[in-house]
């Protein structure tokens, strides 16, 4: 009986925590809808008197080119690094060559490094191959530094598939690629979803690579938003609307595909 009372009491901290988690979203949302006299900072917590979409329209017009840039970076980066990760994971789980157990942790380390430690050579390299400032340069960067996490997720998944399945196919005369194509690929669709949405989210939310590698017309949405917020010119209701717009794509992915998002997140802590 005592325990059932604590259960009900649990809702008090849960609701307080919910308020804490929703505070920034509340401010973004109500401010985004306000216009005219209501916008003043002292009315921050008041509900809007009318629902005006003007701020969202203005913010969207300002952000549109950068949203488009982000999309053009994030989609190829997520797709290509997922494919590479899947192939690597397959080989590292099912076709271990000599040294594979040394190479795997060496690849993994790449996902933990502070990227500051590779930025100077990276910028130099992008200049040399004439991709500095461009979107393809940023895509290439995301693909390469995405390899560790995508490889990890797929390797863990393929390692959980019984070896007998692969061995039986080998006896039947299937070769390396046909085993991948006919047996493993069809059952790895859920893993592809996990990895794709994780890479999509990471690349969409990236700031460091984009701010260092792209020229102003190729900024991604995070860089554009940060510049908007740092400037004195853009009104704060527009900033709030812009923040919400910038967060929307990944937020939608989270709401629609939360289960897969969670799995990608857990993979990052190596706990498969």
């Amino acid at each position, binding site marked *: 009986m005592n*325990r059932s009372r*604590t259960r009900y009491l649990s*809702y008090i*901290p*849960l609701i307080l925590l919910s308020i804490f*988690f*929703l505070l*920034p979203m509340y*401010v973004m949302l109500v401010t985004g809808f306000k216009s005219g006299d209501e916008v003043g*900072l*002292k009315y*921050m917590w008041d509900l809007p008197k009318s629902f005006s979409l003007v701020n969202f329209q203005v913010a969207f017009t300002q952000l549109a080119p950068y949203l488009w840039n982000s999309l053009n970076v994030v989609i190829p980066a997520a797709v290509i690094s997922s494919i*590479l990760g899947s*192939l*690597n994971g397959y*080989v590292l789980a099912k076709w271990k*060559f000599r040294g594979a157990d040394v*190479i*795997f*942790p060496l*690849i993994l*380390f*790449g996902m*933990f*490094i*502070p990227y*500051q*430690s*590779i930025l*100077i*050579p990276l910028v*130099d390299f992008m200049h040399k191959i004439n991709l500095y400032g461009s979107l393809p340069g940023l895509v290439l960067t995301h693909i390469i*530094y995405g390899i560790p996490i995508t*490889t990890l997720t797929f390797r863990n998944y393929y390692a959980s598939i019984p070896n007998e399945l692969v061995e039986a196919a*080998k006896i039947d005369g299937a*070769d*390396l690629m046909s085993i991948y194509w006919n047996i493993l690929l069809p059952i790895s669709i859920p893993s592809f979803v996990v990895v794709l949405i994780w890479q999509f*989210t990471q690349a969409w*939310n990236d*700031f460091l690579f984009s701010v260092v590698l792209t020229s102003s017309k190729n900024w991604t949405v*995070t860089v554009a*938003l*940060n510049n908007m*917020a*740092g400037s004195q010119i853009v009104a*704060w209701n527009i*900033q*709030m609307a812009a*923040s*919400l717009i910038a*967060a929307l794509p*990944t937020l939608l992915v989270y*709401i629609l595909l939360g289960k897969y*998002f969670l799995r990608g*997140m*857990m993979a*990052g*802590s*190596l*706990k498969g």
Partner: protein
Amino acid sequence: MQNKKEKWQAFLLVFPSILAVAIFVYGFIGWTARVSFTQWKGLLPDYTWAGLSNYINLFTSDGRFAIDIRNTFIFTFLFVVGTLVLGLIMALLLDQGLRGESFFRSLFLFPMAISYIVTGVAWRWLMNSAAGSRMTGLNLLFSKLGMDFMFSNYTNTPIWGIAYIAIPAIWQLSGYCMALYLAGLRAIPDELREAARVDGASEFEIFRYIILPLLRPVTLSAMIILGHMSLKTFDLIIATVGKQYPLDMPSVYMWQATFDAHTYGKGAAISILLLVSVAVLIIPYLFITLRSEVKQ
């Protein structure tokens, strides 16, 4: 049985990725390390050997780097402890099988899906320290609620300003920590708790002597993951407070030293120090995690 040809095919399949990581991770780190031993200042590369002077200067005659170290300690401590404690509390609350559990879980986790830049822009307004008629953000909320004792100068607080960046950071990552703890809690068999209850243990004793020790591996992993994230914190600081001297961290200093001031040697040295601090946490972690995997 694998024949030779297929082994080669397998290797060729991963070779491009291995090569890319070898160059872009290890090659580039080596290159940065080399730059850190030079006196390179200005836009054109200058590989004149400078020995350890960049490192020595950072530690002996660089006031800003001293602030960085202090800020890193303050921020990391508060962020890691705050995230662990909040994550554990949320996991314990949600582990009781309450109605609405999945709603709360999704709510506590959603900040993981959004960018630090968005988080920073929102919290910059919430943690506004303007007073009087210009008061806004959390201070205004506290004033409306009659909780004036909660007023704060936030990031404008002398010395401890960086501590307030831990608030949005905790906001962003405690849900992640909750998910790790929930997975850990779900792995503890119910029989263990039941048996302890039969033996007359109180709920607190069960938590203290059974649950908490069994969660120790989760706590350790979470500490390492959060600790290394904290060392790398960059976006959140830029978006919340910009580049302010008293609120500086090594990642921000590296960026300014390199790309604003063009003191490449110094920037490289800061980034190598950052890398070493991360490696000290991560390498043993990788080693232990992968070895326990082999044992299983």
